[in-house]
């Protein structure tokens, strides 16, 4: 998969401009975090990249990926799980759609590898918010997508489980090297996981800064304590502060 190059992207809903003249190159096989004020159009941007909605104008190069190249975990992930299917059948769904063989084997491999505490014979409505989040994550990576979009992936998780999911996400990233885009309004999550933090402006969204994070993977709790981590976080915060005028 080649880098996705976005030029002069515009998107409006009715008369409100959501995204205006957004230019960005998304490097391949990196984790990119999008950080910005609430309601700034981060999700709209993800929806355009996942082809749920169409852009108004601008160009996106290398945007011709196939259906099974991309997976997306929505912010309202619990409304994207299928309550009439067991957790196992939920994991099987993308494999069935992509006509995979050995579906059961595939599920038990990924389940054993990532080892989340989810009873696969139950239904999604019998799980806690955090377990549903894990299930949605597993369902997204089971087809090994080249582009993984995560919209607020830690929103339903407590501090401990956020780290657990961060660990698993890094594990997946290191073994499969997909391009991962994460939308978050939590500065610490953004800096902790990303190779590059894209700071977005208030509506209409444009790119304020791209800040690199060269810290090596896998990042751990020690990373959070490091001086480099704090320096990068402060850089992001400074740009964010000037935008929202705190």
């Amino acid at each position, binding site marked *: 998969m080649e880098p996705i190059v976005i030029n002069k992207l515009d998107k409006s809903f009715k008369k409100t401009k959501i995204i205006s003249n957004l230019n960005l190159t998304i490097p391949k096989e990196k984790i990119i975090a999008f950080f910005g004020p609430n309601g700034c159009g981060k999700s709209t941007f993800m929806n355009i990249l*996942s082809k749920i909605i169409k852009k108004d104008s601008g160009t996106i190069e290398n945007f011709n990926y196939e259906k099974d190249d991309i997976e997306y975990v*929505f912010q309202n992930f619990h409304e994207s799980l299928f309550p009439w299917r067991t957790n196992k059948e939920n994991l099987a769904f993308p494999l069935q*759609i992509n006509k995979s063989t050995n579906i059961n084997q595939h599920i038990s491999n990924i389940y054993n590898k990532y080892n989340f505490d989810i009873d696969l014979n139950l239904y999604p409505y019998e799980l806690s918010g955090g377990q549903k989040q894990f299930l949605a994550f597993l369902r997204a990576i089971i087809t090994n997508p080249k582009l993984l979009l995560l919209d607020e992936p830690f929103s339903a998780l407590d501090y401990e489980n956020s780290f657990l999911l961060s660990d698993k996400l890094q594990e997946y990233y290191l073994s499969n090297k997909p391009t991962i885009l994460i939308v978050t309004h939590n500065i610490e999550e953004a800096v902790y996981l990303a190779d590059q933090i894209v700071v977005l402006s208030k509506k209409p969204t444009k790119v304020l800064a791209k800040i690199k994070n060269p810290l090596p993977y896998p990042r751990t709790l020690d990373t959070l304590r490091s001086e480099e981590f704090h320096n990068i976080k402060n850089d992001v915060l400074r740009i964010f502060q000037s935008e929202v005028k705190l």
Partner: protein
Amino acid sequence: MKKITLIGPIVFIILWAIISKLNIIDSFFLSNPVETFETLFLLIKSGEIIPDIIATLSRTLKAFIIAAIIGVPLGLFLGESDKIYESFEFVIDFFRSTPATALFPLFLLVFGIDDSSKIAVAAFGASLIIIFSTAYGVMNAKKSRILAAKIMGANKWQRFKHVIFWESLPETVIGLRHAISMSLIIIIVTEMFIGTNVGLGHRIIDSQYIYSIDSMYAAIIVTGILGYLLNYSLLFLERMYVHWAGK
């Protein structure tokens, strides 16, 4: 059945007994519960009412099954497209608002005076309810689940088969429950007025003609129990197979 659910029927029967004992309503119009249940017991014991129950049940089920076979696919089809639904919304709403019983004469002309006209008119009334509920269920399917399936690569047919159909199922089942009650109502009325030799509606109206008030009330009670059981069986199936509704 919980014990608490028995309180309502017991209070109802006691009130009935008091009203009848104090002659608040002329005993010619309201028999007392003891005599009514005696008559009911005798009608069942002698087997006299059994053919009526079987006839009414069989007509109701036939009408319901025909209505479901027509109504569910049609509702799914109409609900799938806003444009198609809007084109037919007035027609469906018009016939839904027209009492199916008003169409008796038409169905008599087309199907004759035997069972088929009774079943056809009940199936017609019931199918409109099913069409409406199913279409409503499809139109109100959660967009996020359809989108999730789309992103996972599901084509239009797969999204329909794996997501939209299931999303609409809780509403469809509610429609089926209303429809089975509607089938029974229409069948009972047609048995009363179109004419038949057997059936609970026929027994109720015949008992009234010959002033056999005990027998009339007994047949009404059996009809009520039948309606309750039909509704309850669908509720049971709903809890078993649509366990995830609203979750």
